[in-house]
Structures are given as structure tokens and as C-alpha cells.
């Protein structure tokens, strides 16, 4: 009797287990699925906004469709409209494809790894569109901000990358490479800079005229907004030629002393900076430590450009120590001071800016048009004709005076016109990389050379963790196996890019966690059968039409 009962129990248990295990697998053949069908709304860039991102989005959506997921891809024509959908109430999206453009200031991990992923930014209109809330991650993100020892800080950043790879609030699809054409007959020694291509400060100070032409010409499709350094955004790179900074980011992405001769950490919250001697403003007046003190305080008080916030928020005050030295006092230890603050706060001539609001009759210094900027940078301002061109001239008295005599930035209405200007020989470099289609054309033009530059822009697939299905960690784990990196790089990018490795691209060598090479072959390996097995294991099932259902 006892044996029979135990036998029965055993058979029953086995049958139950078989049902549980086989049930979902038998789904397509007619088993009863559990919950509702899985449906995903995916906002992304439209094909005209960014053809590569659009293609990559379709490749992902197709993989999901083949798993039986109902995917609705919603294209957006520009960044403001896409941004208005993601991260805002009512958080009506499941996955979205967006970008963090690689700028040198973003080589420091704080920019991409703190605000976008910290739980403080989860709310309506907040910076954390994913709704990712991990106390462990928050602790690490805050800790790296305070760690002054670069190696220790890197260890923390590696841990953060590992945690993100495991939790997958987003999956980076790719980091692209830029192909930048340049006129090789007119100038030599152009400098490719990480995250910027050829259009950067170093090209402008180092490029050497190869022939008689001494004006270096840039073609761009985006006009500068304003020459006021307190308020500009698209003009930042041009104004970096006119104004000088305590530090600059070198072509490899390291902060190097510039207008500062050196700096010294005094305590964890104070730094002494020694000013280089013999600096002169374009109007002939010397650059003094008083100008430096003034610039920091003035920018902190009146700067409306968003980057001043991250650069100056940790700075408590700046004091003059002696004729050559200023002391910077911080609210808290701030490791990116040299990467984020020093290269972004321009040294302004105090004699021009001090009473500018009264003198010019404007509401605040940020509203002054600053029609003829006076800085101490390697180029002097000549003129800006809005919608037409910006002209700068070499400042002979600069300690690093450029080789070219002048710099002329010419505005075109679209990127195709910029490219044609290159082909015609009207400009020497474009402001951004060209399309794979144009690469073929550029190869046939004898005076054009092509530079291929790794970018650390992050093209990512973000998930909305506030609601199913991406709220479910098991679902996200399965989705890691649905990204066909090879096809994305080959088909969408024309081979110009690498598989995504979180927020830190491989080219950002110091901060990039090398374990990614392994993760791409294990957890993130493209394997739809494995994804299917994992979904099954998590209780998802398929109905007679092959549609995926919640457990």
C-alpha cells in the first residue's frame, strides 16, 4: 500500500514536472499559454534622422519578431521629439534606441555612468530614462566620484560596468567609426582626436600649409549659435580656438596643462594651479591670476551653458595665492576636475566682462552678444557672418601659435553640400564623418585623403524597467542573446564600427572593462535558440500562432 502510494506520488510528481517543463515547449503545438501576449513599443530615430540607428533598430526588432514578440517600431524625426517620449510621463515605451555622442569631456566615466543610471534621475523628465534603480549601483556611482586615486577609481568603474552588464538596463548596440575626408594637398599634419575626428583644436594649431594656401577651411552644416562663451553650445569648439583654458584635452583624451603651467593637489578638496607666464589677451593686456579667479566665479554665477553645471557645481571658491598661483577649493573631492572643469571654463578678460551687463544694457552677461570676442587663445576673432562664415586669424604672440594664417569655417545648409565643397576643393575638412556612400565617391577624388577614427559614441538600446516585459530581469537576460552584432556592424554600419560594450567604448582604453570581450562571447552571444530556452525557463510560453506570452 505504502509502496503503491509512493509510486503514485512519484508518477504524479513526474507527470506534473513533465507538464511544467514540456508544457511551454509544447506551446506552439496548442498548449494553453499563461498570460497576455508580449508587446513591445520601441521609439527610435527615423531613417532620415539617422539611417544607421534605424537599420540597427530594425535588425533588433526582427530578431524579437522571430521569437514571437509583437514589436512596434516608432520612428522619431529628431532628438527633441525622441527625448520627449523617453524618460517622461507616462513612460509609454518598452525599449528605445538613442545615443550619447562621444565628446572628449565624456571620456571620464562620470558623465555617461552617473546621471543616466543613478536612481536619483528616475522621475518624470529625469536623466534616468531606464528607470534603473539599483542601490548597489548608486553606491558605486557615488563612490567613484569621491575616489581620487585613478587606479582605485577604475576598479570601481569596472565593477559598475560588470553590474550593468549583468542587470542590462540597456544594451549598447555599437560604437561607430568615422571616416573623415581631408584635403591632403593643401595642409598636412592634421590630428585625429578621440571623439572628435579631425575638426578639433589640435588640427587647427598643428596643420601645416603644404602649398601656397594659408587659410585652413572647415565646412560645416551646423551654424554656431553665439560667440558668448557663457551661453554657447554649438559654438563651443570654435570658441575654444579664441579662448584659452587652464587645461586642454589632448588628442588621446588626457588632460594636459595649457594656460596652467602646472597644478598640485594640496588636500583632497583643494588644488593649487600655477599660471603660465607671458600670456596675453588679443587686445594686448596681460592675462593675470585675477582674470582666472574672475573667470571661474563669473562663469559659475552667470554661465547658462549646461556644461558649466557639471564643471563648476563642485567648485566652492577660487582664491588668489600670489602673482602666479590660484587655489581652487572644492565642495567635495572631484576627480574629473582636470578633465571636465579645467578644459571647459574659458579665461575671460576681466576688464571686458566685469561690468558688461550695465555697459551693454543687457539683463545678464549671458545675454550679451559679445560681437567681437577677446580671448587669449591661439586664434584672434575676425568676423562672424551668421549663416555664412566664421573667420579667425593666427595670434602671433601665443605660446603655441598655429601654423595656418587663418581659420575660415564655412556654413552649408546640409552635409551633402559640405561633401561637395570638399570634392571641389573649397574646404579642407568637414565637421563630421561622411556616409558609406560618400566614402566610395571620396576614394575617386585625387586630392582627398581618408582618415578612419574610432568613436566612443554610445548607440544603445534602452529598456523601460518600470513595466513588463523589461521589468523582468530574466526577460532581459534572454534578450542579451538577441542582438546580432555582426549583422548590425556589417549591414547597418557598412563595417565601420564595433559591437557595443556598455557606456565605455573599447577606444576609451583606460576606463573600458576588458572583460567585455568575454561577455560578448558568453552572456551577450547572439543565439536565438538560447534566448528561447531562457524565456521558456522563465515561464514564458507561445500560443498556437507562435506569439510569446507572459508566464
Amino acid at each position, binding site marked *: 500500500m505504502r509502496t503503491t502510494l509512493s509510486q503514485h506520488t512519484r508518477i504524479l510528481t513526474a507527470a506534473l514536472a513533465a507538464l511544467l517543463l514540456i508544457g511551454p515547449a509544447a506551446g506552439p503545438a496548442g498548449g494553453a499559454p499563461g498570460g497576455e501576449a508580449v508587446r513591445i513599443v520601441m521609439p527610435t530615430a527615423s531613417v532620415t534622422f539617422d539611417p544607421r540607428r534605424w537599420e540597427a533598430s530594425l535588425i533588433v526588432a526582427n530578431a524579437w519578431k522571430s521569437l514571437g514578440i509583437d514589436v512596434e517600431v516608432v520612428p522619431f524625426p*529628431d532628438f527633441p521629439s525622441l527625448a*520627449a517620449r523617453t524618460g517622461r510621463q507616462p513612460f509609454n515605451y518598452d525599449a528605445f534606441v538613442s545615443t550619447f555622442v562621444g565628446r572628449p569631456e565624456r571620456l571620464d566615466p562620470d558623465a555617461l555612468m552617473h546621471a*543616466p543610471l543613478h536612481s536619483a*534621475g528616475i522621475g518624470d523628465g529625469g*536623466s534616468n530614462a531606464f528607470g534603473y534603480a539599483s542601490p548597489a549601483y548608486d553606491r558605486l556611482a557615488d563612490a567613484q566620484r569621491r575616489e581620487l586615486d585613478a587606479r582605485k577609481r577604475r576598479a570601481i568603474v569596472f565593477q559598475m560596468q560588470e553590474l550593468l552588464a549583468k542587470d542590462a538596463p540597456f544594451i549598447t548596440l555599437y560604437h561607430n567609426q568615422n571616416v573623415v575626408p581631408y584635403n591632403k594637398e593643401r595642409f598636412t599634419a592634421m590630428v585625429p582626436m578621440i571623439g572628435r575626428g579631425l575638426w578639433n583644436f589640435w588640427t587647427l594649431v598643428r596643420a601645416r600649409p603644404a602649398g601656397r594656401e594659408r587659410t585652413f577651411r572647415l565646412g560645416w552644416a551646423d551654424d554656431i549659435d553665439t560667440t558668448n562663451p557663457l551661453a554657447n553650445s554649438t559654438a563651443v569648439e570654435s570658441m575654444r580656438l579664441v579662448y584659452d583654458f587652464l587645461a586642454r584635452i589632448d588628442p588621446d583624451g588626457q588632460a594636459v596643462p595649457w594656460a596652467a603651467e602646472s597644478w598640485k593637489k594640496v588636500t583632497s578638496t583643494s588644488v593649487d594651479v600655477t599660471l603660465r607666464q607671458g600670456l596675453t589677451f588679443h587686445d594686448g593686456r596681460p592675462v593675470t591670476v585675477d582674470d582666472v579667479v574672475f573667470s571661474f566665479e563669473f562663469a559659475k554665477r552667470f554661465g547658462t551653458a*549646461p556644461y558649466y553645471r557639471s564643471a563648476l557645481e563642485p567648485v566652492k571658491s577660487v582664491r588668489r595665492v600670489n602673482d602666479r598661483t590660484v587655489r581652487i577649493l572644492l565642495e567635495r573631492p572631484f576627480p574629473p576636475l582636470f578633465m571636465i572643469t579645467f578644459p571647459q571654463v574659458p579665461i575671460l578678460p576681466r576688464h571686458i566682462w566685469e561690468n558688461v551687463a550695465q555697459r551693454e544694457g543687457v539683463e545678464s552677461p549671458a545675454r550679451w552678444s559679445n560681437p567681437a570676442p577677446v580671448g587669449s587663445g591661439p586664434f584672434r576673432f575676425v568676423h562672424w557672418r551668421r*549663416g555664412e562664415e566664421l573667420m579667425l586669424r593666427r595670434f602671433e604672440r601665443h605660446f603655441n601659435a598655429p601654423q595656418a594664417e*587663418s581659420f575660415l569655417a564655412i556654413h552649408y545648409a546640409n552635409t551633402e553640400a559640405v561633401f561637395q565643397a570638399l570634392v571641389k576643393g573649397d574646404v579642407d575638412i568637414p565637421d563630421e564623418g561622411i556616409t558609406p556612400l560618400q566614402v566610395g565617391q571620396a576614394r575617386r577624388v585625387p586630392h582627398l585623403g581618408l582618415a578612419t577614427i574610432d568613436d566612443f559614441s554610445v548607440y544603445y538600446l534602452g529598456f523601460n524597467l518600470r513595466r513588463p516585459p523589461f521589468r523582468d530581469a530574466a526577460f532581459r537576460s534572454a534578450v542579451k542573446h538577441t542582438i546580432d552584432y555582426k549583422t548590425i556592424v556589417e549591414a547597418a554600419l557598412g563595417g565601420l564600427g564595433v559591437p557595443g560594450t556598455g557606456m565605455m567604448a573599447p577606444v576609451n582604453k583606460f576606463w573600458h572593462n576588458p572583460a567585455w570581450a568575454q561577455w560578448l562571447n558568453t552572456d551577450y552571444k547572439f543565439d536565438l535558440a538560447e534566448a528561447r530556452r531562457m524565456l521558456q525557463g522563465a515561464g514564458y510560453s507561445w500560443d498556437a500562432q507562435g506569439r510569446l506570452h507572459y508566464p
Partner: protein
Amino acid sequence: MGSRSRLRFILRRLLHTGVTVWLVASIVFLMFRLIPGDPAAMLVDATFPSSLRLEILQRFGLDQPLHVQYVAYLANLARGDLGWSFFYNRPVTDIIGGALVNTLVLALSSFLVAYGLGIAGGVVLAWKRKTRIDTYGTLLALVFRASPAFWTGMLALMLFSYRLDWLPHAGLRTPGYAAAGLLGKYLSYDFLVHLTLPTLVMGLYYVGYPMLLVRNTMLEVFGEEFIEFARARGLSEWRVMFVHALRNALLPVVTAATVFLGLALGGQIVVEYTFSWPGLGREIVLATQHRDYPVAQAMFLVLAAGISLMNLLADLLYPYLDPRVRAHA
């Protein structure tokens, strides 16, 4: 029409124009706020703390309720204050001024091409009606009318600029030109060379309308007795066509021309974009992309005001050109 009734007519038309402009002002105000996305998105992304976005919206006054923004906008408008550009960080009037001049120059030059060629061509077509000149001339006008301006523009660029290298492909002047006075900037040879291609492309696009209009009206006029009489007087056919027939066929052309000039202010978006011409049309595209509401609103207002004024002008010109209108009024 007595001078008092004419005054009343003018006042009534001015009132209509005012109402039209107010309606346009209200529609563009709402329209730009309905497009998803706000100007802060151009400045801050997720790498900045969330509070910054709100601060920026506050600075632009976009945190206020819509009706408060609307009342402030209308009040400023009534005072002639078009506002402050979010993107360029300067008064909107500064931005519109330069762009308006560039657009007007292009509009006027293509007007001359379209209506000069169009009117002369229309007379010739009517004169040579039912011959090959008429058939092919009409066809040609229709072909230019039917092809989109960006397409003819691109073809013209490929041929005259990229291949033959006769004409520049973008901009107002050769980059790096020496500064001259305002007049010198627009009267130089360099400027004319840059003006040629966009003018031709736009002029040819619009040439068909006046050409066919003149042709058809001329054909109607041909039946009138005074034409018979002119011929009977032994006047040359040339004189009959251009002096007697054309003058009486011009009335609808004047209406078309005034409306054209109004529309040409905004209708050049495509041409300005193709030829990198820094005018109103291109600025509208940029302002929309940047969500620079004050600039975009002002641009549309300028266009609407332009069209309304030109319509008003047509109404006022009519009685002078056609005594019959005077008599009926």
C-alpha cells in the same frame, strides 16, 4: 468710388489683414508647442542632472501655463517685440532682419525672371497659337512647373557647378570676402554669380503660371473689337500684341504677381536649402529643428504678414488698373 468709400474699403481690408495676422500668430503659437520635444532637449541630455532641464525651461518661460505664455506673447507682439531666440541667444529681430533681406533679393530676382520671361513668353505663345512654338513652349513651361525645385536645383548644381565648374554651389558670396557696405555686398559681381543658379531654378519653376495665364487671357482678348480695330488701323502685329492685347490681358497677372511675391518669401525653403542660401526659409527649418519657438513663430508671422499685405496691395491696385472695377464699386 468716392474717396470716403475708398477709405472705408481700405480700413476694412486693413482690419481683415489684422485679424488674419492674429489668427496666424495664435496658430503658430499652438503649433510649435504641440510638436513633441522642447528647446531644453537641444541643450541637455541625460548626462546632466534632471533639475537642469527644468531650470532651462524656466529661463525660457516655458514652465508657465499655456494661457499665460500666450497672453505674454501677444502683449509683446503688440509692442512689436518678437522675443528672444533660445538658440542664438539674441533678439529675434536681429535674426529675421538679415535673413529677410537675403530672401527678398532672391524672391525679387526670380520674380523678374519668372514674370519677365513668363509675360513675354505668354504673348509669343498666344501670337503663335496652334503652331509648334505654342505646343513646345507650353510643354516646356509645364515641365518646369511639374518638376520639384529641389530636383531641378540638384541637376543644375551637378551640371553647372560640380561638372562644368562655371558657377558656385552654395552661399551668398565667396567665403572670406572683404567686408563692404550693405549696398556693396549686394551689388558686387561675386554676389550676382552666386545669385544666378538659385534665381534661374526658382524663376523657371514659376515661369509657367504667368506664361499660360497671359497666353489664355490674350486669346480671350483677341476676340474683342478693339483688336480688330487696331489691326484695321494698320498697326504692326508686334504693336497689336504687346501694346493693345497684352495691356488688357495683364489684370489677372497682377493678382498672380502680388500673391507670388507674398508666397515667395516662404516658398523658397527648398531652394534655400539646396543652395545653402541663408534666408528665411532655411532659418525656419533650423528654428523648427532647434525648437526655437520665438524664431519659428516670428518667421511664420512675417510670411503671413507678407502674403496679407500683398493681397491688400492687389485689391488696392485693381481700381487703378481696371476702370471697370472702379465703376462697379
